[in-house]
C-alpha cells in the first residue's frame, strides 16, 4: 500500500513537472485585442492573452511599432496587465508583431 502511494506520488510529480512551462498559441495574421500577461524586458518579448483566451508570444523586432495615444513609446512603457491591440504577421508558425498599441 505504502509503495503504491509512493509510486503514485512520483508519477503525479513527473506529470506536474511535465506540465509546467507556458503554452502559447499560433494565430493567423491580423489584429487582436488582449491583455499583457508577462513582459520579458531583456528579450524585448511580451505574452499577450487575447479575448478568446489564446496566448501570443511576441518578440519585438526592429519593425515593431509600439504606440500609446498616437505617439511612439519605448519598450519599457509596457507593463503586465495593460490592455493592448496587437497586429501580427504569421511567418511560418512565428508571429512577428508589426504594431502594438497600448490602449490605456
Amino acid at each position, binding site marked *: 500500500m505504502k509503495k503504491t502511494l*509512493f509510486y503514485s506520488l512520483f508519477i503525479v510529480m513527473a506529470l506536474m*513537472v511535465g506540465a509546467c512551462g507556458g503554452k502559447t498559441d499560433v494565430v493567423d495574421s491580423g489584429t487582436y485585442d488582449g491583455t499583457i500577461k508577462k513582459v520579458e524586458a531583456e528579450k524585448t518579448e511580451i505574452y499577450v492573452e487575447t479575448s478568446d483566451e489564446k496566448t501570443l508570444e511576441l518578440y519585438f523586432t526592429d519593425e515593431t511599432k509600439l504606440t500609446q495615444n498616437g505617439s511612439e513609446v519605448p519598450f519599457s512603457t509596457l507593463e503586465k496587465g495593460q490592455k493592448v491591440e496587437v497586429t501580427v504577421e504569421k*511567418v511560418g508558425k*512565428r508571429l512577428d508583431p508589426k504594431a502594438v498599441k497600448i490602449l490605456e
Partner: protein
Amino acid sequence: MEQLPDFWRTEVWHPLTVHFPVAFLSLATIFLIAGYWLRKASPIYTGQALLIAGTIGAWIAVYTGGLADGIVSRQICDPTVLEAHENGAFTVAGLFSGASALVIGDYFGLLRQFRKLLRITIIILAITGSGFLAYTGHLGATLVYQQAAGVYTPSEDCKEFTETD
C-alpha cells in the same frame, strides 16, 4: 558585403554547455542502475557524482538556452518546437534535481528507514529524466538541423571567409 559573425555569439553558449549534462545524466542513469542492480559501491558513487554534476550542468544549459531563446526565436519558422524544447528542458532539470536531492539525502543517511524505496525512486526519476532528455535533445536537434537555430548561413559566394584570413 557580408561579414563573418563572431563565433562567441550569445546563442553559441547553449550548444557549448548543453552536451555535458546530456552525457553526464545519461551515464549517471546507467551507472546507478548497474550499481544498485549489482549492489556494488563504485558504480553507485560514480553515478551519484555524474548525477549531481549533470544536474548542475542541466540548470546551466537551461540558463544559456534562455539567452539563446531571445535571439533565435526571431529567426526560426516554428517557435512552437522551441517552446516544447524549453518545457522539456525544465522537466529534465526538475526530475534530475529531484533525483540529486534524494541522492544527497541518501549520502547523509537521511530517510535511512526508506533506503530501498529511496533508491528505487532515484532510479525511476533518472529513467524518466533520461526519457525526457532524449525527447528534449531530439527537439534541440530539429531546431538546429531543420530550422538552423543559431546557425550562421554563409553567403553563396563565401566571400566573407576569404576576407577574414
